[in-house]
């Protein structure tokens, strides 16, 4: 086993600390899909500064780190049709479910929210089945 689980754990703690700051200081749940979705569909115009600042940090610091000390790659599939379909599914799905991996997963499970736990079970099951179907059976990804 390689050491990537240590990086996973360290990164995870940072993610949890980010959520803790956003909760304890700003009084909000750190859910990426809600923060982004509320900005683009106009439902959270009153909080655009706070949300915009969050997204600026989310984009800019990784950009700086990736360009300097932590060269990174997404290794995303080159098939742009698959990428586009995946993007729509993620956008529509997270907004219908009212949360994604950060909101339902990190913030929901940590307060033992039934909704967060159920959402996480369903997106992991759906993700797992999708990988089986499209990687092992159809060979698309």
């Amino acid at each position, binding site marked *: 086993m390689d050491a990537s689980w240590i990086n996973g754990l360290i990164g995870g703690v940072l993610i949890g600390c980010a959520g803790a700051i956003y909760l304890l200081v700003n009084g909000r749940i750190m859910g990426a899909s809600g923060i982004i979705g509320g900005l683009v569909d106009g439902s959270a115009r009153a909080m655009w500064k706070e949300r915009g600042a969050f997204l600026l940090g989310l984009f800019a610091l990784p950009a700086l*780190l990736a360009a300097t000390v932590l060269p990174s790659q997404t*290794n995303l599939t080159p098939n742009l049709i698959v990428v586009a379909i995946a993007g729509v599914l993620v956008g529509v799905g997270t907004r219908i479910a009212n949360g994604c991996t950060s909101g339902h997963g990190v913030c929901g499970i940590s307060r033992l929210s039934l909704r967060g736990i159920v959402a996480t079970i369903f*997106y992991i*099951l759906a993700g797992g089945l999708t*990988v089986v179907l499209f990687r092992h059976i159809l060979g698309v990804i």
Partner: protein
Amino acid sequence: MRALFAFIAGSLFGTGLLISGMTNTQKVIGWLDVFGNWDPTLAFVMGGAILPMAAAWAYSRGRSPKLGGTFPTPPEPKVGRNLVIGSTLFGAGWGLAGLCPGPSIASLSFGGTGGMVFVAFMLAGMILTPRLKSQLALA
């Protein structure tokens, strides 16, 4: 002040995603791929994130946010159709590309054309969802 701390939280979130490897789509797909070469990293990320967050929820009890207002109240513990349908659609997209909303933004600077296409279509989906929900009577 609100914007400053939101910026700090966003920066920390993005750094965590980058360090943990969650901006690498193959690590995410590797975690979902239980019949392939299974990669346990995501479980460590989730576990690591849930610990400080659980402490924060515990600390929040009986207190108020530092910058005013009130803490979000727990939603009705109702597991509705929207939660199940939405999470299933999201999971399918997550498995296809290996990206979810947070990492898609955090990796935008080095994700190339594909990363931009993903974000553009994700935003389009988010913009269309209110209309879609009323059409499908999911509202």
